[in-house]
């Protein structure tokens, strides 16, 4: 039977150097505790896909030197300004950037979810994003008359890393409305979830909880990480820690400040 991992460190063990890792957008339940554990472990050369955008998580991983390729639609600290390590890494060409647009990433994950090699999408034509993506193809739709449409290749990550309110002892994870977490899990080879707590009983047996549940057969490991999204929020559970994000934005503006942030908040395992 399914067993929760003993620790966050155990849970993230399958995230190998060089693997393709998908993480969710900044408001969907971001596994920040697991991200700090990954940085402490010194993961390298990640092909990081943020579905479809990211904030602190991508910035931290980039700044800590864990990322070789980044595929996303935007990285920003939102109200707290630009993502400084992302911006700096792009300008100094330290990472390879695959610029996308949100629905293209969603569609590429849906392609893997459906087991098809590609997904069509409207828009895109005439955008320079398309110009720089030689992996995206334009065809004439066979259902139209001179009707061009873009085909996006499926994205099949090695690992999806998510954070959610709870999981049960069968590996079922309650994701609520954040259904992109399910799409990520369907598309990925393996899914690793951190959760706020373990739910006693089977989530799928409860008619009101089942609709928001990711079934356990998609889930490789679950580890408990209370306030595991901190300093980001977890929808319906806790909000963002605005003062911490301000502090991050200020510290990460310089290489030295970022190193100090890592020392203080990542390597010393300090949390909220």
């Amino acid at each position, binding site marked *: 039977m399914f067993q929760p991992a003993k620790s966050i460190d155990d849970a993230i063990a399958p995230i190998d150097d060089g693997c393709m890792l998908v993480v969710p*957008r900044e408001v969907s339940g971001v596994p920040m505790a697991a991200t700090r554990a990954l940085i402490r472990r010194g993961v390298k050369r990640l092909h990081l896909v943020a579905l479809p955008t990211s904030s602190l998580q991508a910035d931290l991983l980039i700044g800590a030197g864990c990322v070789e390729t980044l595929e996303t639609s935007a990285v*920003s600290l939102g109200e707290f300004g630009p993502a400084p390590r992302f911006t700096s890494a792009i300008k100094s060409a330290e990472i390879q950037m695959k610029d996308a647009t949100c629905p293209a990433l969603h569609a590429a994950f849906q392609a893997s979810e459906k087991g098809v090699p590609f997904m069509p999408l409207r828009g895109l034509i005439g955008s320079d*994003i398309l110009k720089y993506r030689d992996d995206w193809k334009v065809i004439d739709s066979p259902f139209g008359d001179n009707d061009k449409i873009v085909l996006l290749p499926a994205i099949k990550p090695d690992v999806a890393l998510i954070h959610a309110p709870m999981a049960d002892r069968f590996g079922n994870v309650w994701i609520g*409305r954040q259904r*992109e977490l399910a799409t990520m899990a369907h598309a990925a080879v393996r899914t690793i979830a951190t959760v706020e707590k373990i739910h006693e009983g089977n989530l799928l047996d409860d008619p009101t909880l089942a609709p928001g549940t990711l079934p356990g057969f998609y889930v490789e490991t679950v580890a408990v990480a209370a306030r595991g999204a901190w300093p980001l929020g977890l929808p319906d559970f806790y909000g963002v820690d605005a003062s911490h994000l301000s502090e991050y934005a200020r510290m990460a503006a310089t290489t030295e400040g970022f190193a100090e942030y890592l020392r203080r908040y990542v390597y010393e395992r300090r949390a909220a």
Partner: protein
Amino acid sequence: MCMSAAQRKKPFRDEELLADVIARLIGDVRHVAVGNASPIPATAALLARERGNGRPYVSLLQSRKHNFFTDGARELFDCAGQGRIDVFFLSGGQIDGQGNVNLVSTGDYAHPDVRFPGSFGSAYLYYVVRKIILFRTEHSRRTLVPKVDFISAPGASTPDTYRPGGPVALVTNRCLFSFANGRFTLASVHPGHTVEEIVENTGFNFEMPAIVPETSSPSPESLKLLREVIAPQLSEVYPQFAAQVFGVTQSAFAS
């Protein structure tokens, strides 16, 4: 946004004027969605809803309370593809006179001078949402340029490209432009600003009527709605904005 001496005398803040202008642009529609980092469009959409007695639906994507989507982060885009999103907002690090927006970088793409966050959903929504309202507070030759360095999303498309939607207007801290037939037209100048100032600070060419009207100021009723009803709703998603503009403080655990 910096306040000039002239502005200080006005009984409203710039943000209130802009929200009011945008709320009027929204018009009578069914569903308005507001993306990331767009506090003034969010304010405008909520104002339009208050005035319309609950119509239009307003979806603030980063909100829990003002978010009607239950099919994950893709639903906005699917919904827009279905033609069910009537109005959306886009901005740009650069916007040019053809309505092209740049959310990626300036200079050479491989070695940029300035890197912006990225294109978000612009390379899709700009095509399929009927009314896109462009919004950029900073009105300068740096932001409003003759030609963007990177086209995140183009203002217009060739006939063989599916394109039911596109830009209808551009709102800045100085004026309102309308957009039609591939060009901007100066529609009104905000109180305290002048046509000359706009010509001077705009990097692209635009059309202009012989007499350019002044942008209407928000009514006392609108200001009351903004300050008393809308502002508290904003603090969930835009705590800093709500605090700075309206003096509303965020609760410790907004959910």
